[in-house]
Structure formats: structure tokens, C-alpha cells
């Protein structure tokens, strides 16, 4: 049937042989790896139904009507507990900052009232010339509270701002003040961190700050008007 020449047959045969040898070698390696994985693994995987395998003796002694009654009772209790937990989130304004997506939200009555792009920390590190002092430009994660509100804020430049620019650190505190760089409003949330405006609006949505949260002018105004000292902030 086949009109192949001997040399061509030989070529195909060696091709097949190589393929088969390669496949068996791959299979052998995979099996060895599997064996190593299962032999040396000291962990156990938790079975899916661990939770329901043990029946409490009190439950085991119940008859069908009692069981049904208990189920209805427990379901009602669970519903109440669920409601109670849902009510724990404040109805007053709260700020959520998604630092991965660079997004800020104002939540009121558990509903998103304002949502917009923001900018959070770069995560970069800066050391001074001596290497003794280091700063990490991260936006802190966790729970915070609004500690202050300022209109027309003036930035009191910290040491790192001068070191980053390669300028000497001034001895006179007045030389640290810089107006018109934080936007119209600043909302402080402790340790020198602020939610404030920006001159670099085109960079909103990216991580470019030294740890503060930069917001566009319109959104900043709305948030500034909605929050008061003590308003919770969650950054994640």
C-alpha cells in the first residue's frame, strides 16, 4: 500500500521511536514526581464534609418533630444574627480605599455614594546619603479615622521631600511650607497621611504617591463635605 522508499521508512521509524521514547520518558518523570509528592507529603487535605460528620448526642436523641422545630428556631436565630451583623457597618459616611485598584469610595447607609479613581503609594524605598534613615512610600492598610479637615492646606514638607530632591534639609520650619500643591482640601487620618488633591490629575488611578491618597478636585470636595472628624476609613 505504501510507496515509501526504504530510507524514508527508516526516517519515519526513527521519528516514531524518538516520539515514543520521549513520551515514555515524560510519563516516567511525571510518575516519579507524583510518587515523591504523595510519599513525602505530610499534610492531609481536609475532607469536604468534615463539618457534618459528627452528630452531637443531644441532636442524635431528638425525634423528627423536635428536629424540625429546632431547625426552624435556629434558622430564625441565624437570620437575626445575619441582620445584626449587616447593621454593624456604619450608616454614617465611611471611606473605603482599594489600594490595588486605586479607587476611593464613600459609603453611606451601606450604599456606594461616591466612587472615583485615586492615587496611592508607590511602594518605593528612599534612603538618605548615610543610609541610616529609610522611608517606604506605602499607603498604610487597615482601619483609620479622620483626624482633621483643612481647607486650602499648606504642605509642611518632611525630610524625605528634600532628600528626594537632593536639597539640604532646612533648619527654619517656615522654609518647609509649600502652598497650592495639596489641592483645595486635605483630610488627615494620622501619622502624617492625608487624603488630598493633586496637580497630577492625569496620574490618578496609578500608584504614584509617597503614601498619601490623592483624589480629583470634584470628588475631593464631595468627600470633604460628607466626612467629619471620626469618620472611619478602611484601606485595603
Amino acid at each position: 500500500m505504501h510507496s515509501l522508499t526504504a530510507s524514508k521508512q527508516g526516517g519515519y521509524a526513527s521519528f516514531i521511536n524518538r516520539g515514543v521514547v520521549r513520551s515514555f520518558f515524560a510519563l516516567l518523570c511525571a510518575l516519579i514526581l507524583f510518587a515523591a509528592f504523595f510519599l513525602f507529603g505530610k499534610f492531609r487535605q481536609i475532607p469536604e464534609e468534615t463539618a457534618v460528620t459528627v452528630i452531637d448526642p443531644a441532636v442524635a436523641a431528638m425525634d423528627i418533630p423536635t428536629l424540625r422545630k429546632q431547625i426552624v428556631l435556629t434558622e430564625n436565630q441565624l437570620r437575626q444574627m445575619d441582620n445584626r451583623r449587616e447593621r454593624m457597618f456604619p450608616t454614617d459616611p465611611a471611606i473605603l480605599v482599594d489600594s490595588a485598584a486605586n479607587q476611593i469610595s464613600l459609603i453611606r447607609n451601606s450604599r456606594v455614594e461616591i466612587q472615583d479613581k485615586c492615587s496611592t503609594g508607590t511602594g518605593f524605598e528612599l534612603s538618605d546619603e548615610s543610609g541610616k534613615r529609610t522611608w517606604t512610600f506605602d499607603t498604610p492598610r487597615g482601619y483609620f479615622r479622620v483626624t482633621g479637615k483643612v481647607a486650602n492646606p499648606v504642605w509642611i514638607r518632611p525630610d524625605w521631600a528634600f532628600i528626594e530632591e537632593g536639597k539640604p534639609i532646612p533648619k527654619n520650619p517656615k522654609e518647609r511650607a509649600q502652598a497650592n500643591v495639596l489641592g483645595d482640601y486635605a483630610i488627615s487620618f494620622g501619622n502624617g497621611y492625608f487624603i488630598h488633591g493633586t496637580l497630577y490629575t492625569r496620574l490618578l488611578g496609578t500608584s504614584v504617591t509617597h503614601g498619601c491618597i490623592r483624589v480629583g478636585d470634584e470628588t475631593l470636595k464631595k468627600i470633604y463635605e460628607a466626612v467629619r472628624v471620626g469618620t472611619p476609613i478602611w484601606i485595603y
Partner: protein
Amino acid sequence: MIPILPKNGSLKLQWALLLFIQLGIPWTFSCQASSGEKNGGTKTETQILQQRLVELKLREKALLQENALARNPEPYLLVHLSGGSLELKAKGRILRAFKVKRLETNLETIPDTAQVLSEVKPVQKNDRPKIKPGDGEAATVEAVRKNLWGLHRVPQDFKLVFRNGMILGIRALPSERTGVAPVKFLKNLYRKILDRYRHEQSSDQTRSQIIQLWLDENDARLLFWSLPGQFKILIVQG
């Protein structure tokens, strides 16, 4: 006589072998796991109701503990063993939710009270970009454009060490978007073997109580990124 197959015959053979590895072995293990369940036979109404009540009681216990945590404003981490999920929450509101792909432990009993974090230990250190004094903000913006730091650079394998000595290990598996099935399979295998190797090498392997959660690699990084400095964790079975 040497059989002559079509030119792509050996390729088919390789694919068949790969399929065998991928489907055959997991199928064998799943058969072993499920054979026990089938032998149990059908359940009576009483057993069904008992099981339902036990589930509800577990859920009640979990909710009680979670509500106690949610009274404080600090974020907390909730691990649902049966649901296979992990949630970062504050005041009962989910900030982020992750799906647990695989869960392993060397613990006989899982602690059912809230645990307090002691430290987050990355398995591999990822160095952050450094700014030199005098580089200025423009250099920072340029570095950001080059994408030198971000979610893609943070550790994907890390340990959450708790004050009672318990360790919650977070390990990454290839994401859903990882190429074709054989590539994903091999990556999965590599990550698991690497983890076993690290576990064998680690000095604290015998005394540590470990729960290990395997997440999608993007989820693992996002979790690391989002973690606050201090938080509590609650592991619930219901």
C-alpha cells in the same frame, strides 16, 4: 515489520499520554475518595434533619464568633473551610473575597476561636525599587511607568504567623488564565513540589501547626497587598 503511522501519530501518542496523566491519575484518587461515601447507603429523614441541624448549629457558632469580631472596626480575615473561601472583612462588610483552591493541614483539630496575627513572613523576599537621593519626583513617576513595583511584584507565597504559634500558609497556584491545560498542569505540579521541598527544608516544620491555603496566584498577591499590619483571623467550619 515496522508499522508506519501517519506523520502526526507520535504526537497523538504524546497527547494520549498527557491526557492519561492529567485525567487518569486524579480520577483514580477521586474514585478512592468517593468510594467510601457510596458505601454509606441512603440516609433516612432523621439523619437528613440531624445533619441539617448540625450544619445550622455550626453556622450559628461561626456567626456568633464573627459578630464578636465585627464589633471592632479593625479588619479581620474569615476562612470558611466548608465553603472554600477566604474573606477580608470589616464590620461585617466584605472588602475582598478569595476562592480557596486547596486546603491542607497537619492539625488534628482546627482552632475555632479568633487568632491574633504576629507577623507576615514572605517565603521569598521581593526587593522594592530604590530611589536615590536627588532623583526627584519625576524619576519616581518614570519608575512607576516602568511598572517596577505593584501587585505583580509582591510575594505570592507567604506565611501568616499567629501569636499561638499557628501558621496560615498562603500558596499560589497558576491562575485560570495560565495557557493551555498541560502547561497549567505542569506549573501546578512544580509549585506543589517546590512547596514540599521548602517544607522539608524549613526548620520549624515539626513544631508548627500549619494550615495551608492554595489560592490563585493573582488572589494570593492581592491578599498580601491588602493585609493590614494587625488583624485577627477566624477559621469557621460552618
